[in-house]
């Protein structure tokens, strides 16, 4: 029997080019859009203000469990996004989600919590470059100005006509965009079109 973990995971926009970029010599600088290999995704529901739950989760996730709204905490191989007052999305390296889920379930035994594998739920698109913010502003009503949204922040919101989770990673700025997998092709096409103003070119691959 083949080891399932070793099978290549198929991205959500594989029908299209896997990357879309604006060359760095263009006005506004480089702007790239790529689909990342789907990371492990775990939905965690628990009472983050219950010290027992916080301790249990913290023990597994190297202390990461952001309780402030719209924030993200990251370590080398795990990123935890606040989704709601008792809900988080945990991103792991591809294939590591099973082990992390097992540890979480073990640690949370006896507490009212839910640990659910949602690795297939969302695609991860990464948009980076000086025009990235303006590109997103064409379809997102959030205040993405640096005074309103900074690295380490996330939001569940709407981009064009699709719900997304948005996470700003750095000041490039780089954004991780997680649409539902079935919406990923639409979001990809929409972003490619919104980037065209900056002379974007599809990179085959």
């Amino acid at each position, binding site marked *: 029997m083949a080891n399932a973990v070793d099978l290549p995971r198929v991205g959500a926009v594989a029908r299209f080019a896997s990357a879309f970029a604006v060359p760095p010599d263009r006005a506004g600088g480089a702007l790239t859009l790529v689909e990342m290999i789907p990371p492990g995704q775990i939905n965690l529901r628990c009472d983050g203000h219950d010290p027992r739950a916080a301790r249990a989760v913290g023990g597994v996730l190297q202390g990461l469990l952001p309780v402030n*709204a*719209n924030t993200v905490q990251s370590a080398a191989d795990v990123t935890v996004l606040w989704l*709601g*007052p008792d809900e988080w999305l945990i991103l792991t390296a591809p294939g590591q989600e099973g082990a992390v889920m097992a540890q979480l379930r073990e640690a949370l035994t006896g507490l009212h919590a839910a640990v659910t594998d949602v690795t297939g739920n969302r695609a991860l698109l990464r948009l980076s470059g000086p025009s990235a913010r303006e590109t997103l502003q064409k379809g997102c009503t*959030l205040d993405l100005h640096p005074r309103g949204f900074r690295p380490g922040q996330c*939001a569940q*919101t709407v981009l064009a006509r699709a719900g997304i989770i948005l996470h700003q990673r750095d000041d490039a700025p780089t954004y991780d965009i997680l649409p539902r997998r079935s919406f990923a092709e639409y979001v990809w096409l929409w972003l490619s079109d919104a980037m065209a103003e900056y002379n974007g070119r599809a990179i085959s691959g």
Partner: protein
Amino acid sequence: MLLIHCPWCGPRDEIEFAYGGEAHRVRPADPSALSDAEWADFLFLRANPKGVHRERWVHAHGCRRWFNVERHTVTHEILRVYPPGAAAEPDAAVAEAQPPQASQQGVRS
């Protein structure tokens, strides 16, 4: 387009929310104890004030939490947002059809 303060996520555009009708209507603990008329009242009759209205919204594209909004139906000014289960304002008599003064922001809460 309203700007609604989700009690958990902060101010977001109306497109992220879905409307849930009048708030503070509690499902009867034992519907079978109600007469047909009382049950019909629960099912079908809703307040439709010209003035302050307390209503349910859900942050459908955000944290998926339901909450209550106190909104003036003439000016669309949002006077307050508060979690479900919290009591309606003690001085509920305030809910008159008096348009409030220009708010300092879309929302104060």
